[in-house]
Every structure is written in C-alpha cells, then in structure tokens.
C-alpha cells in the first residue's frame, strides 16, 4: 500500500566506483516484501526516482543504487542527516511460495540488491537459495559479504574475468534449480529466461513517471495484455514477458 513519508539519511556510502548504499531511517512498514520499490524525491528534480528495496527493518530501509544520470549523481552527494521524501510500498513482490527447495537467485550489477532481501526472506522460510551474481569487472563486485553473512555462497562471474568465473551469469548457471528469481539488465534477463528449464520471476527496470499506476508511463506488452511495470510489476512471471523491446 502506497505511503508517503519523510526519511533521514543514516548512511550514503559508495560500495564500488559506481554503486552506493543508501540507508534511510523512517517508517518502512508499508513495504510488504522483496521485489517492491520506493520512489525517492531528489531535491532539485521534478520526477521521483525508483529504487528496489535492498533490505527493510521496521524503522529503516536500504537501497543500493548506481549513479547513471544527474538525479542519481545528486543523490550520491547527499550527506547523512538530510531528509528525503519517499513513496514506499510500491509495486508487487516476488512470489516466495513458488521457490521450491532449491531456487536460483540471479543478479546482474545493482540487480543483486533486491535479491539480498529475497534471500533473507527465503532463509526465514528455511529455504537456502543458490545465488549467482554477475558483474563487469572485479571493482564492480558488491554485496558478496552480505550474502556470505547469511550463510550463502554466491557464485560470481565477471565479464572480463578479473574475479570469479569469467563470462556472463548464463555461463555459470547451475542446471539443477527448482525456480529462478532474477534482477538485472534486460539482455541478461532474456538470456537467463531462455536458458533456465524451470519457471521463474524477473524484476524489470523502467523509466517511470509516477510509480503508482497513474501516468501509464512504464507500460509494457505482456502475454497477459498491457501491464504497468510500476503497478502490476515490477516482478513478472517468465511466461508473461515477450522480449520484444
């Protein structure tokens, strides 16, 4: 359920040259589960920016974000103590009931962030996920410690071979998994979707206007008709996605 609230920056730390972790203090109770996102109003910008929730406690939430434009670059410069206006509780959640006993979590780049939240929730249901994370190069690798702290042993790939297994996540995909959950760039999602023999869910990114279904700015075609990434998504079933764009 969408809720508007003020949050205070507790931490805004670079994890890699491109990715930062933003921890925000405030009422995070509107967030239902992994897969959902928040819309952050960045001072000086008209449109809010959407970010997947990376973890959530009752009175705080964390997002990991990549500086890709002037909005996120401005966000990276904001110090602890600064207040931010957020919409929380946006979008749908990964469906944990479909995980089976040995789900595979596949993250590309910052796509790893919501999967950490998902991995924690799965563990609370006594499901140990296999985790596969893909990055461009060694210095892009992040969240590895956090996954390991959960007792998980992520497989890491880097495109240039500077860390872990050389290549893309599809080069390291284990055959045996009960279901997959993926978040990352569209080409990665498409490749993962084609390679996995089982069902899966994927969290999509989109350029959004409102983030709550009013503006029709992020609509995609799916096998079940037009859907708004912000409202019916951002998590979609493998069978829904048409990969036409």
């Amino acid at each position, binding site marked *: *359920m*969408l809720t*508007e609230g003020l949050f205070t920056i507790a931490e805004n730390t670079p994890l890699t040259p491109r990715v930062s972790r933003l921890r925000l203090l405030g009422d995070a109770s509107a967030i239902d589960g992994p897969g959902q996102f928040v819309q952050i*109003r960045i001072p000086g*910008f*008209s*449109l*809010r920016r959407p970010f997947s929730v990376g973890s959530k406690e009752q009175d705080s939430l964390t997002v990991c974000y990549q500086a890709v434009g002037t*909005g996120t670059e401005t966000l990276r410069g904001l110090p602890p103590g600064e207040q931010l206006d957020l*919409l929380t509780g946006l979008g749908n959640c990964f469906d944990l009931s479909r995980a089976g006993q040995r789900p595979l979590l596949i993250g590309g780049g910052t796509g790893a962030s919501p999967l950490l939240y998902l991995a924690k929730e799965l563990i609370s249901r006594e499901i140990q996920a296999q985790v596969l994370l893909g990055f461009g190069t060694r210095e892009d690798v992040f969240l590895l410690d956090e996954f390991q702290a959960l007792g998980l042993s992520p497989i890491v790939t880097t495109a240039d071979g500077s860390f872990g297994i050389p290549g893309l996540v599809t080069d390291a995909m284990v055959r045996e998994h009960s279901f997959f959950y993926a978040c990352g760039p569209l080409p990665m999602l498409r490749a993962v979707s084609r390679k996995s023999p089982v069902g899966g869910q994927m969290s999509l990114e*989109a*350029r*959004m*206007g*409102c983030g*709550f*279904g*009013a*503006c*029709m*700015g*992020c*609509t*995609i*075609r799916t096998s079940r008709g*037009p859907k708004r990434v912000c*409202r019916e998504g951002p998590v979609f079933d493998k069978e829904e996605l048409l990969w036409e*764009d």
Partner: protein
Amino acid sequence: MGRLSVSLCGIELDNPVIAASGTFGYGAEFAELYDINCLGAFSLKGTTLEPRFGNPGPRIAETPAGMLNAVGLQNPGVRAVIAQELPRLSRFCHKKVIANVSGFSIEEYARVSQLLDSQDQVGWLEINISCPNVHGGGMSFGTDPQAAAAVTRAVRAVTKKPLILKLSPNVTDIVSIARACEDAGADAVSLINTLMGMRIDLRTRRPVLANTTGGLSGPAVFPVALRMVWQVSRAVQIPVVGLGGVQSAENVLEMLMAGATAVQVGAANLTDPFICPKIIAALPEVMDRYGIRSLSELTGGTF
C-alpha cells in the same frame, strides 16, 4: 454555496480543483489513497473508440521543473470504460466526473461522445483536440479553427451534456481556436494541454523519448498556461477551465484571477499523489491571507 464552490456549466463543484485527464487514470489508484469525493471533479483518462496500447517506451523524461510524456493515449477503449471502469468508479465516487474523449477522426469523436452520453456519472464531456503524442489525430484538430469547430459541431449533435473543448498551446493564436469552439457550440474550454518538447540523451545521441517528442507539463509551463487562460477568458463568453503546472492553492487563485472558472491539476498528481487534497485543504487559509471571502468573487477574473 460554500466559500470554495464554483459552478461549471450549470453543475456545482464543491471546490474548483479538478484532477486532470491522463494523470488520474479512471480514479481507482487514487481512491485507494484518499476519498476522491473531496475533489471538485476529475477528468477520466483520454478515451478512444478502440483500445490503444499507446507509444513504445520510454514514454517519460525529466525536464527542469517539469516532465515530458509521450504516452500516446493508452486506454482500454470506450466500451471497456463503460462496461468496467465507470461501474467500478461508481463504487467509490458519487460525484459527476468529466469524460475525456480523444479520437483520430471527427466520426470517432462523435461516436465515443455518443456512447458516453448515456452514462449518468459523466457530467461533462471534455473533447481532447490537443494530444501532441499521436499522429493523424489529436492535436491536428486543435491547431486549426475550422477543424476545431467541425469536431465541436459533430459532438454537439450527439450529446446534451456540457461540452468542454480541451485546447492545445501549440498554436499561433489560441484565442481564434477558442472562439471557433464557442461559435460551434462548446459550453466551455479547458487549457492548456501540454507543450511539445524533447530531450536528447548525450550518451546515445538519441531522443530520450521513443516518440522523439513529448508533451511538457509541470510547474515550468504555469506562466504560459496562465497567460493563455487570461487571453482566452477575455475573448470568449463561455467558462475557461485553467490547467498547466498548477501545484498549489496559490496557483489555483492565480488561475481564477486570470479568468478561469475552475482549475485542473495534472502533473503534480504524479509526483505527489496527495497534492489535490492538500491544495483543497490549503485554499481557505490562503484565501484568508489575501482577503478572499468566497471564490465566486474571483469568477471571470479580477482585472
């Protein structure tokens, strides 16, 4: 009559704040957030005869103090609006709403209007002759006085409901379009729709929007909208609904002082989903500050 109430084409509004078409869907998303009966009214998502997916993405771009959109009239088609959206709306909204009609031919405008004419909850028809994001329709009817008059006459012939013609700012002389609509039987005009604009992504060297161009809205356009509302309201006898970049109670009062009878809030709904109730709640105090006892004092403009 309360101190906030105004009358639009014979229908009394509790307050002059109307959520603008294309920023409020068919009301359901906002009805989850607040009681939308607090609004003066709202204008439904632009509706065409057949379902439309709209334009490919990206459909949205950031701009200084505003945004561009090129949604391209995504809607489920008028039959689905009548069969599904209006019955659903009646469960959480007891007020009259404005149905926004879009089309690609004069016949389509007339047919969609005729179908909506039978709907009790539709208080007004807002005829969108100003969408900049579709080709071969929309704005092409709103940039020529004769075409605007032809649409107005065709729709006038099929409905008794008050007709509001929604005008484009992308013209040399908006007054001549407004006069043509008035002469052809319009009961009101609403203005402005979005201003055509574009952005380019420096990295890809390509337009940000898949449609290349889009419609600019948000606070950046407010002074332009206000100027056009002032020009048109001096030139026509029918009511003017002012919109374009309105985001505060102060902006509402400026629009009324410029000559608007009611005011629509558009892009602001997208960045603050609670903006309309906030504006309505703020109006009495802001009116007190400027010595306005009742909004009816301002009707028709103050200078």
